[in-house]
């Protein structure tokens, strides 16, 4: 059979089942609409708050501790806020208390609250708290209570965090102190052990070995200088005699000359009667008179004394000085060499010492730097703690306080009613199709041939006059369905319920 025939058959057979189908449609619609009306209305209350997400720990321990993200804070907040004790508080503070009678119901209510109270971050630091309930007052109360709890929790966690930060820093300081002491002691011991090899502050950062080497070098240079000076002085002394004989007669006793020069100076300033002048005259006279007397002790060496001039004497003195210096420097040189040899031996025996010391020193330096940083942080925590008590209000702010909802947000009754209408019509169609399918009647000769027996043919029914009454009746009943839908949309059932109640 062709598709058209099948459709024709279904339409024709379905038309026969139209009243049953319409009855089913009506039943589905009526019960569905009643059900939709009976779904309790849900009211939603919401509040918006601003909470500074920069928690205290994040500001204080930045760089030392891991920074906690705002999202993490929200989660912590949410978890702590929707904890069982908090929800118990919510239940006792609102009318929800009256809805539960035993512990099991209470448990159920708490799980429901956990699921249905929504804390959602909108932007940074902006949170909304939403709750839906069948009673607008309860919805508002729950959100209000949550808000209060949120404020309490935020403030208390802030304080807790402050206290924990303080103890944390204190602990760190103590531990760093111990470590620092140990490092210091180790370093000092090491230094004492290898004092010779380690650079010291006294030596300008150089090690003792280096210092000894430098000194030795200096000593050796000085020694060389002294030797050269000695040689030079000796040459001068050797060259001296010829020159000294020539110039020695004219001068006389140097002391006398000295005294005379002194006298002349005095005379320029004072008169002859001045006691100092007289005294100087006396000295000069004395020296002149003693010139013969003075020459007497020099008489035995007369031949040489006649050649020895003051310059020669001077050179000789200098030569002696230089010689003494040389011997001293030579001793120093020896000492220095011995010292270097000794230090070299020590350094060669302990090649790692420098590196070890560097390590120790570095550890110490790091520890000390951290320790000092912690000390400054402790100060800043104390200052921040003092500031925090005043700045709590800035950190938490209610932007939108929870309002009493006036209109229901759920269920969407018009949509559900339309769905019921569609479902009803669909059910009617389904019933019609099902009845047609279950119907074993024969609609055409073709159907009858399915029995496998010869079919003589079909005799048409006499053409019934086209009667419009059943069509109009059915159309009317079907239109009434839409009228019912319109009444449901217009809220007639609600009015009826109110009238009954």
């Amino acid at each position, binding site marked *: 059979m062709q598709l058209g*025939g099948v459709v024709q058959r279904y339409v024709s057979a379905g038309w026969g089942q139209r009243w049953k189908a319409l009855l089913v449609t009506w039943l589905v619609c009526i019960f569905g609409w009643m059900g939709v009306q009976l779904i309790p209305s849900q009211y939603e209350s919401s509040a918006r708050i601003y909470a500074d997400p920069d928690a205290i720990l994040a500001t204080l321990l930045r760089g030392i501790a891991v920074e906690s993200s705002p999202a993490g804070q929200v989660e912590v907040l949410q978890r702590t806020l929707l904890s069982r004790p908090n929800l118990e508080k919510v239940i006792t503070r609102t009318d929800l208390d009256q809805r539960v009678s035993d512990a099991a119901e209470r448990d159920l209510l708490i799980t429901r609250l956990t699921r249905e109270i929504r804390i959602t971050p909108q932007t940074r630091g902006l949170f909304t708290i939403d709750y839906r309930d069948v009673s607008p007052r309860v919805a508002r109360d729950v959100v209000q209570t949550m808000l209060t709890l949120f404020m309490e929790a935020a403030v208390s966690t802030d304080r807790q965090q402050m206290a924990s930060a303080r103890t944390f820093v204190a602990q760190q300081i103590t531990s760093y102190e111990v470590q620092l002491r140990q490092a210091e002691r180790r370093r000092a011991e090491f230094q004492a052990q290898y004092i010779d090899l380690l650079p010291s502050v006294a030596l300008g950062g150089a090690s003792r070995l280096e210092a000894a080497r430098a000194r030795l070098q200096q000593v050796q240079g000085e020694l060389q200088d002294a030797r050269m000076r000695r040689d030079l002085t000796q040459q001068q002394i050797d060259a001296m005699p010829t020159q000294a004989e020539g110039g020695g007669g004219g001068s006389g006793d140097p002391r006398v000359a000295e005294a005379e020069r002194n006298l002349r100076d005095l005379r320029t300033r004072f008169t002859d009667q001045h006691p100092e002048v007289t005294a100087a005259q006396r000295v000069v006279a004395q020296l002149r008179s003693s010139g013969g007397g003075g020459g007497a002790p020099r008489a035995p060496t007369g031949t040489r004394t006649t050649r020895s001039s003051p310059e020669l004497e001077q050179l000789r003195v200098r030569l002696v000085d230089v010689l003494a210096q040389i011997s001293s420097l030579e001793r120093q040189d020896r000492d220095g060499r011995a010292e270097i040899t000794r230090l070299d031996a020590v350094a060669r025996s302990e090649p790692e010492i420098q590196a070890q010391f560097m390590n120790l020193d570095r550890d110490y330096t790091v520890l000390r730097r951290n320790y000092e940083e912690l000390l400054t942080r402790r100060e800043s925590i104390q200052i921040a703690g003092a500031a925090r008590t005043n700045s709590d209000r800035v950190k938490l702010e209610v932007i939108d306080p929870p309002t009493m909802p006036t209109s229901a947000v759920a269920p969407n009754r018009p949509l559900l009613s339309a769905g019921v209408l569609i479902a009803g019509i669909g059910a009617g169609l389904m019933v019609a199709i099902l009845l047609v399918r279950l119907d074993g009647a*024969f609609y055409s000769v073709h159907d009858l041939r399915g*029995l496998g027996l010869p079919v003589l*043919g079909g*005799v048409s029914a006499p053409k019934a006059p086209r009667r419009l009454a059943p069509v109009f009746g059915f159309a009317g009943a079907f239109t009434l369905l839409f009228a019912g839908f319109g009444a449901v949309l217009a809220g007639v059932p609600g009015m009826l319920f109110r009238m009954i109640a």
Partner: protein
Amino acid sequence: MNAPANPRAHLVERAAEMMGGLAGGLATPAVPLPAAGTTSRPDRPAQAAPASTRAVPVIPRATLVEAGLIHSPDGPLRSRPWEEMTIVQHQVLRTIRDAAPGTGPRARVVLVTSAMPNEGKTFTSLNLAASIAISGARQVVLVDADGRLGGISHALGVAGALGLRALAHDTGSRAAAMPLPTAIEKLQVLPYGACPDGQPDLPSGATMAAAVLRLAAALPDTILVLDSPPCLSTSEPSALAAVSGQVVLVVSAQRTQRNEVEAALDMLDACPVLQLLLNRVQLTANDTFGAHGNYGAPYAT
């Protein structure tokens, strides 16, 4: 047998038409029939008396139309149901013609039945018999095997006449004389008949079957169309099926269920030729007969 029956029916029909046309009633005078009977069959005076007591049973065409005949001379010459019925009739005749040679009179017995009541058995049997008769192929006797109040006998106003029941009880009665003539020349009607005194109300299926067989044997070359009660309500059809050459099971379209039809077919198992006829077809698909409009009748001149 055929020759004497024909002129009688002819005369009776004509007389009835005249009477009906003049008086407009069923009160046909008993005078012309005995006259006709005596003139046509003077050799059988004994039989003339019972025939005359049957109160001039020439059934007029109007009564036939009232009983459900769909073909009438003043109606359209071609009507769709009538064309459809003609096709059915052709097939029935073909089956009779093609029957095995040894079948005997049984081959001429056509049992019209249905699964449920009110499916159109009477309509089908009346029209089928009329169609065969009008086409002139054979002599037809429409046998009312139902006897229900409001059945064909009642509809034709012959419920009180002797019929099949009498034939079943009185094996000695003359079967050939019992069918009543109608306005259609070759169509006769055998009513269910009144209950003879002292006999049980309902003849058994077997006796009825025997009566039918007797009738078939008594009227050679005549087709018996049996209008029987529904299969799933009574036991007669299964008994009658055993003596029928073919069964036409009428199925009412859009009403009778497949399982009912199957159950009915089980009841009729005794007949070797089972055929189906869909009645009251409302759905017209383009592959069904007559779907393409009224062809129109040939011009009559």
